[in-house]
């Protein structure tokens, strides 16, 4: 396959970026999208051109490090992570536009690399159960109904890649926040902190300059892990419950 790439290049956080075109030939349909970028980078290096910076690590779709907007879609045309996208999803002769996640809360560091530290700070604000090491009762002390455990698990599979923010027209981080609120809120261990957790996490979400949710559903549609949209409704219910109890 021969393809043309239009890639966002930006030297550093303070620099103005621009789109740059690259031609790449002999692309195998079995290459992953990131392997295609590897090949391009090898070529650029040998031509004394700065290789394209992009985040990636596990390359098996679980660490959440990778993620770019490909032809206007977060993680590209398949519902999976960028590292699990393969070139067979494209046609010979395609022009592919590659851009970083864009949101005020995710400033560009370089090229396609953005800073997602805001997600860590949302977790710091309350995305945990306070269970210091050594204090735990026996694991069987509290049975958890299977349906609750399964829903907690579904929400807990979030990989924190940020595609939800990138795809949301409001650059909202609600799906990420709601996934954690739902994961911990479904479990008996999560109940004591449930009312305060949602308040602290939503406040942090807003302070990080994420936008609000308008229930459009782009986030869940691009989520590589299929985090359900209704987790946001569960977060809303929890937050309104807290506010009505005066926990605000």
């Amino acid at each position, binding site marked *: 396959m021969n393809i043309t790439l*239009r890639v966002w290049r930006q030297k550093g956080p303070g620099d103005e970026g621009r*789109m740059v075109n690259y031609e790449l030939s002999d692309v195998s349909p079995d290459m992953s999208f990131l392997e295609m970028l590897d090949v391009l980078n090898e070529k650029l290096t040998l031509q004394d051109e700065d290789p394209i910076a992009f985040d990636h690590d596990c390359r098996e779709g679980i660490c959440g490090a990778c993620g770019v*907007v490909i*032809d*206007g*879609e977060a993680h590209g045309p398949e519902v999976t992570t960028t590292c699990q996208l393969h070139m067979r999803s494209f046609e010979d002769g395609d022009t592919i*536009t590659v*851009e970083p996640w*864009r*949101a*005020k*809360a995710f400033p560009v*560091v370089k090229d396609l690399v953005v*800073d997602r*530290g805001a997600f*860590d*700070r949302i977790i*710091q*604000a309350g995305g945990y159960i306070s269970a210091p090491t050594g204090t735990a009762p026996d694991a069987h002390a509290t049975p958890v109904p299977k349906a609750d455990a399964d829903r907690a698990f579904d929400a807990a599979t979030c990989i924190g890649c940020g595609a939800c923010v990138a*795809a949301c*027209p*409001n*650059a*909202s981080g*609600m799906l990420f926040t709601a996934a954690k609120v739902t994961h911990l809120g479904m479990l008996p261990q999560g109940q004591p902190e449930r009312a305060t957790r949602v*308040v602290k996490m*939503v*406040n*942090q*979400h*807003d*302070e990080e*300059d*994420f*936008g*609000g*949710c*308008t*229930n*459009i*559903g*782009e986030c*869940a*549609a*691009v989520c590589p892990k299929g985090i*359900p*949209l*209704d987790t*946001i*409704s*569960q*977060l*809303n*219910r*929890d*937050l*309104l419950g*807290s*506010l009505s109890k005066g926990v*605000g």
Partner: protein
Amino acid sequence: MANSTLTKKRSTAYGSTVALKAAMAVTGVILVLYLIAHMYGNLKVFLGQEAFDGYAEELRDLGYPLLPHEGFLWIARVVLLSAVLIHIYCAVVLTRRDNRARGGASRYQVTKRVQRTYASYTMRWGGLLIALFVIFHILHLTVNVIAPGGASDSPYVRLVNGFQPEYWYVTLFYVAAVIAVGFHLRHGIWSGAATLGFNRADRQGKINAVALAVALVVTVGFLLPPLAVTFGLVSNV
């Protein structure tokens, strides 16, 4: 970047995006209920001038003698006006936050919508159109300051005068606004329900179906009277 430690600012969840959205949802519910009642009243136009004007007059004495003449109407007006103002205020605040969050107008070189409905796309501009229309609408049919086809004390006559074929632009504006209302309800009812915490995976389809049904009924219900006038099905006796 390097150090991801939490910065502690004082903020309260009462002003959070979620709380503002909830305020929009609650005020939205009030406005939807009002729209349905309003639509019901409008349809009385098909029962003739007496029924229509009589209904309008009876509203003034609703709750009488417990409430004074026009008491209910003023209470409703205050509630509605507050709801509208809160709804718009929250919308403006949230829109500004969203614009800031997006980080600039030209966000991506290429944008592809995967999921969103056309209705959701119309919420903000459609909302603005509706707001402008409501002002016009009050000046036209309530206060009658604007009176295409001639002013009248009879609401029925005002309606019939205003939508005569020669004032096609009034009808057109009305139709456009009602369609905008329809789209607004289609997404707004779904979104409001989700914001108030009613969405669950197994209910998502039902909520959307209800939103679509209400939107269609309200749209058609509001479109019938003026179009009936324009096309001569309803006229001054």
